[in-house]
């Protein structure tokens, strides 16, 4: 889930030196200055973009985080630069020029993220239509010291795909062609700017499925998905993109084309460099095309929704599900009662279960033979009911019910934003302690007197949900307004709690701008040092990308 978004190509931007501080060397978290952090809102997972934010104008990121400074080594964009790009890209529609004329309305969508949390000052958006054009654009920017931010569907949750200052936005939406599909092996080669849902629909016609699904599928780009190593709803079944991506074509900041669009599942010849680009959030180059190994689309899908009385029972149910459903289990999602209560409040839909339960789980199976699957699922359901592992449950009888049950899971992020904002933490923690973080956080917020039913309290509720199957929890604090007092309770408490258990502070959303400074909670100095070496090797000028994403 969540991730949906991530994508944005990450490559990001540039300029910006981290201001305050910390020299590059000091990115370590413990010392670092922390920006607000977290509040990243939304995870996009769920649902429609754009509905969460309220109507107030969004503050510029540079005002919200005055400690981030534009690196003076980067040049200001001039009319000469714009002329070059117009000649290079040819078409009028490929350049949105706010430098030589006023194009505020046209440019605004590229300056902000859908959570309405970040907003940059860019005046130039480029939409290259081919890998060669991307290469020429980047080379020119590198030679002329122009900072850039790669952008895909711009559905990220950590502020990775929008500019902070006047970085040039390189939007990949015009590179949206499917290059080839092999019906026998299931290998798809496609441009980075293909929209996930469109790509998946193309594959559906052929009986295949894209090995990734997430709530933002209608807007996110597959290139961005790869750049951010999006996890999503089916990771449990199809694994991480590190496994399913077979090859990558990317452009380095100096214009070099990384031509590794292999279609082979096995290729043990030297370093597997494409892996560096998966999850790099664009910091070492812009992905322009990918080749992916796509699995067969399952013909039979079943969904069941349970109510359980404790987190221990949830774990038992998960264990049984793995044991009894094994290869057909395709999702095991966790939702707590507060999260479902908020969805109910916002949507006013009829809840699937009549009584309330402390925890809810959604299980999906997908396989090739519905009778076989049904039989397995029924045996499993009978077992968990008879042994009182689950207290109640329903099974979708048709496709419409499948969708509406998923709605109770996928709709959470959107509904949480209903009151104004959400502090979002996307973390990996050992399964047995997964929910303790939510309980402890809620206790702390309550003890601080921040949570209540009316406008005088900033916090609406503290909820937990996520991909149980991947030990990935979304700890979300729905708020009526972003408030320093809430932040103080949350941080560094949450990060320290996770670090103590050797968890990850960003399981699937990436670091982006929001979490870049906290990498030290999840990675050692040694590891960060090695990452910096790679960054400096491929992007010595630090053109793309900036300070936000991993190490610099």
């Amino acid at each position, binding site marked *: 889930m969540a991730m949906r978004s991530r994508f944005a190509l990450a490559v990001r931007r540039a300029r910006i030196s981290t201001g305050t501080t910390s020299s590059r060397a000091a990115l370590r978290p413990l010392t670092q200055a922390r920006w607000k952090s977290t509040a990243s809102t939304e995870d996009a997972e769920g649902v429609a973009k754009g509905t969460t934010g309220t109507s107030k104008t969004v503050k510029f990121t540079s005002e919200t985080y005055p400690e981030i400074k534009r690196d003076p080594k980067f040049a200001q964009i001039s009319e000469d630069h714009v002329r070059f790009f117009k000649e290079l890209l040819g078409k009028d529609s490929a350049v949105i020029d706010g430098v030589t004329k006023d194009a505020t309305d046209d440019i605004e969508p590229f300056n902000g993220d859908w959570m309405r949390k970040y907003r940059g000052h860019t005046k130039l958006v480029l939409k290259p239509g081919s890998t060669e054009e991307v290469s020429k654009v980047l080379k020119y920017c590198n030679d002329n010291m122009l900072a850039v931010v790669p952008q895909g569907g711009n559905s990220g949750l950590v502020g990775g795909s929008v500019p902070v200052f006047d970085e040039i936005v390189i939007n990949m939406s015009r590179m949206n062609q499917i290059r080839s599909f092999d019906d026998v092996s299931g290998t798809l080669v496609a441009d980075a700017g293909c929209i996930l849902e469109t790509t998946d629909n193309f594959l559906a016609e052929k009986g295949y499925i894209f090995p990734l699904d997430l709530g933002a599928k209608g807007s996110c780009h597959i290139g961005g998905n790869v750049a951010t190593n999006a996890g999503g709803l089916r990771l449990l079944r199809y694994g991480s993109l590190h496994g399913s991506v077979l090859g990558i074509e990317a452009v380095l900041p100096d214009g070099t084309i990384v031509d590794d669009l292999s279609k082979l599942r096995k290729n043990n010849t030297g370093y597997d460099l494409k892996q560096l680009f998966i999850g790099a959030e664009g910091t070492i180059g812009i992905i322009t095309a990918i080749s992916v190994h796509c699995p067969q689309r399952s*013909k039979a899908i079943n969904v069941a929704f349970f109510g359980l009385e404790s987190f221990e029972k949830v774990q038992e149910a998960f264990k049984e599900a793995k044991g009894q459903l094994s290869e057909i289990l395709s999702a095991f999602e966790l939702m707590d009662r507060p999260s479902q209560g908020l969805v109910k409040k916002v949507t006013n839909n*009829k809840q699937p279960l009549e009584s309330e339960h402390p925890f809810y789980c959604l299980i999906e199976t997908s396989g090739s033979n519905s009778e076989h699957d049904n039989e397995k699922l*029924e045996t499993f359901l009978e077992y968990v009911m008879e042994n009182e592992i689950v207290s109640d449950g329903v*099974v979708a009888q*048709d*496709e419409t019910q499948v969708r509406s049950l998923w709605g109770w899971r996928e709709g959470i992020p959107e509904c949480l934003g209903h009151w104004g904002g959400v502090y979002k933490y996307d973390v990996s923690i050992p399964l047995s302690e997964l929910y303790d973080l939510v309980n402890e956080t809620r206790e702390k917020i309550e003890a601080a007197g921040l949570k209540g039913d009316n406008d005088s309290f900033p916090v609406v509720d503290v909820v937990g949900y996520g991909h149980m199957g991947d030990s990935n929890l979304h700890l979300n604090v729905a708020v009526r307004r972003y408030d320093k007092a809430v932040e103080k309770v949350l941080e560094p408490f949450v990060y320290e709690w996770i670090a103590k258990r050797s968890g990850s502070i960003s399981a699937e959303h990436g670091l982006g701008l929001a979490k870049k400074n906290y990498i030290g909670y999840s990675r050692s100095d040694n590891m960060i040092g090695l990452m910096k070496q790679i960054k400096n090797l491929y992007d010595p000028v630090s053109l793309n990308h900036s300070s936000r994403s991993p190490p610099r």
Partner: protein
Amino acid sequence: MSALRILVPVKRVIDYAVKPRVNKAQTAVETTGVKHSMNPFDELSIEESVRIREKKSAPGGVEDIVAFSAGPTKAQDILRTAMAMGADRSIHVEVKEGDDLEPLGVAKLLAKVVEAEKSNLVVLGKQSIDDDAGQTGQMLAGLLGWSQATQASKVSFLEGDKVEVTREVDGGVETLRAKLPMIITTDLRLNEPRYASLPNIMKAKKKKLEKKTLADYGIDGTRRLKTTKVIEPPPRQGGGKVEDVDGMISKLKELGAI
């Protein structure tokens, strides 16, 4: 007031969310390997019958709710669903795939079932989403000589075996009043069907599912209509893209629009 003995005919159809495709021979819609579910209008019929019992809205109470389906063996799946939603028992008449009954055949069969089960209320979907014929309920009422109220959006019970049915019509609602026995066909606004819960799915396995044949009811299922060909509707003409405003103007001129 007499206790209700409700008959709810249900049909197994291609799932509402699946896009149907014509088979290669162009003789029918492809059904193998396609997800099937209960006809959505029939879910409403089951739900309404169960609510009549749960809400005790009928003064005489509900004595029996029987779900009935004529179709291939797999139609038993949806009968189990109907029982998980609250039907007391069910009857399945095996009809081979491809030998589907026509609305008149179904109506004649149902008339026999009504007689055998002593039903005094039949609640049907207003149409099945595969054939979209929308005729069975009306034909059944004609064969039985009963009152009918079609496309119900609300059903309530009055004294003296009277039933009041509200239906949505163009420009408003129409309220009909009739006496049992009667036929009601259901429309989307009537209710929101429940999910089949785990405990009820398990209970449904123990409920009675009777297996019958057309011959048991003395019905001849031979079709009177012949399907000569099934084809997809012509694809929608795609739009064209123009490069800029000038392009659009010249295109519009070309088309004679301006």
